[in-house]
């Protein structure tokens, strides 16, 4: 949907105006969260009335587009979050079951391939990026994190391979042939179980065939609408406790969710937040295993792996949309400000022109008498 908006940009005659002031290029509407934003220089605007009128029109159009993109992103964030919430009962029950089975199995000496900790020689890094731009520093932040992680791995003298998920990441790694990439994957609009399954299958076969000894997942964690962090999780070997930890061993499982709701307030769309806490039911301690514990864990752990990946994909999408929303919101603000400045300049010039004309007429009339 937003791609159709993107195609509108070049059709506006921004290019012939850009010589007048750097402000008219689109990039100046977008905030760049990575670089510290420099205060806008108060440029004086020198151009003819007609050019000014054209620019005001084009800024108006841009503002409409960014405003629309903002609303679209806001609506989509809601959908993305609903997806997270609807998958919640599954992952909650899964973690709970896994935890309980593990406590029962702790005394047994079992060997499950997915939890096997091997000395790391080669590492796989799954990088999750978005499919589209115009979302502030979202994709850049992920790719920067990936670069720094790769540098770290190189310093440690380890081998590595990248699995890239998302169009932006794909084109980034395609331009850098010195980074070995195992696979390029694309996502659809909303991440589905099938997408997660494709990644899980790939990661699973890499790990089980001992091609890699550790799999890390780099994605953007959704913290709130204005904040999201690129984080690195160890995906495999799975921690047998059934919790996801980052590379420092800190548990990053989210216990509570924030939900955002799009509402109207004083005629403007705003976003409300509410916190949802899901209760965890008690678990009966006496359980018989129908099959070997190993078989049961074999059935459970791939499920767990899939649900973790699905969750990461969903969070990454929610972060992307939130980033786009705030980027578009500040772009709209900038457009409004620019429009205001241009209008003032336009009105001044028009006034000056009228005054000049009146003076000429008066002077002419005076000369006649």
């Amino acid at each position, binding site marked *: 949907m937003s791609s159709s908006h993107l195609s509108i940009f070049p059709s506006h005659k921004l290019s012939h105006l850009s010589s007048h002031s750097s402000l008219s290029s689109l990039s100046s509407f977008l905030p760049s969260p990575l670089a510290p934003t420099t205060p806008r220089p108060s440029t004086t605007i020198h151009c003819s009335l007609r050019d000014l009128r054209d620019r005001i029109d084009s800024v108006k159009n841009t503002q409409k587009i960014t405003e629309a993109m903002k609303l679209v992103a806001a609506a989509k964030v809601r959908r993305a979050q609903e997806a997270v919430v609807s998958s919640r009962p*599954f992952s909650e029950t899964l973690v709970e079951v896994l935890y309980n089975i593990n406590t029962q199995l702790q005394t047994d000496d079992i060997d499950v391939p997915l939890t096997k900790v091997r000395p790391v020689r080669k590492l796989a890094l799954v990088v999750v990026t978005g499919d589209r731009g115009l979302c502030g520093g979202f994709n850049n932040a992920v790719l920067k994190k990936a670069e720094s992680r790769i540098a770290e791995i190189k310093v440690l003298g380890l081998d590595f391979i990248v699995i890239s998920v998302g169009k932006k990441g794909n084109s980034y790694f395609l331009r850098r042939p010195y980074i070995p990439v195992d696979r390029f994957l694309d996502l659809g609009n909303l991440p589905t179980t099938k997408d997660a399954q494709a990644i899980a299958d790939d990661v699973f076969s890499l790990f089980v065939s001992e091609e890699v000894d550790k799999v890390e997942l780099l994605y953007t964690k959704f913290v709130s609408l204005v904040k999201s962090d690129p984080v690195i999780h160890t995906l495999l070997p799975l921690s047998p406790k059934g919790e996801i930890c980052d590379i420092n061993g800190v548990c990053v499982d989210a216990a509570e969710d924030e939900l955002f709701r799009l509402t109207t307030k004083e005629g403007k769309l705003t976003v409300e937040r509410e916190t949802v806490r899901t209760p965890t039911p008690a678990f009966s301690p*006496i359980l018989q295993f129908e*099959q070997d514990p190993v078989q049961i864990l074999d059935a*459970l752990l791939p499920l767990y792996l899939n649900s973790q990946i699905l969750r990461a994909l969903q969070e990454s999408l929610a972060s992307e949309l939130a980033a786009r929303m705030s980027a578009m919101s500040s772009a709209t603000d900038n457009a409004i400000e620019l429009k205001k400045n241009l209008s003032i300049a336009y009105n001044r010039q028009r006034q000056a022109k009228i005054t000049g004309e009146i003076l000429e007429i008066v002077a002419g009339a005076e000369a006649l008498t």
Partner: protein
Amino acid sequence: MTLNLCVLTPNRMIWDSKVKEIILSTNSGQIGILPNHAPIATAVDIGLLRIRLNDRWLTVALMGGFARISNNEITILGNGAEISTDIDPQEAQQTLEIAEANLSRAEGKRQAIEANLALRRARTRVEAVKVISY
């Protein structure tokens, strides 16, 4: 005593209500579960899940996973599940044919395993539709 069944997939909840009896295809064969069943945990194979509501039987195509039975509460965690009435018979049949063709073309161990899994999934869906028709 009543039995409560809850079927969960990563996407959504497929089923959450009272049932009379279920038949589950586990890794070690089919088991029937009636109220007051002993608490067990079992791995679930790709296969059919039959649910009895009063005197009506419902079929669900279940794509493998895990089941836990305790205190008349059955929780099934599945990779995917579809109630037979939601499956389009023609589409399922086509998928089965494609899967069969893929298996015959598969090269190497990894491809063969993947094709086999796809075939079993497709076959289960077709079976689920056929059960309802007689």
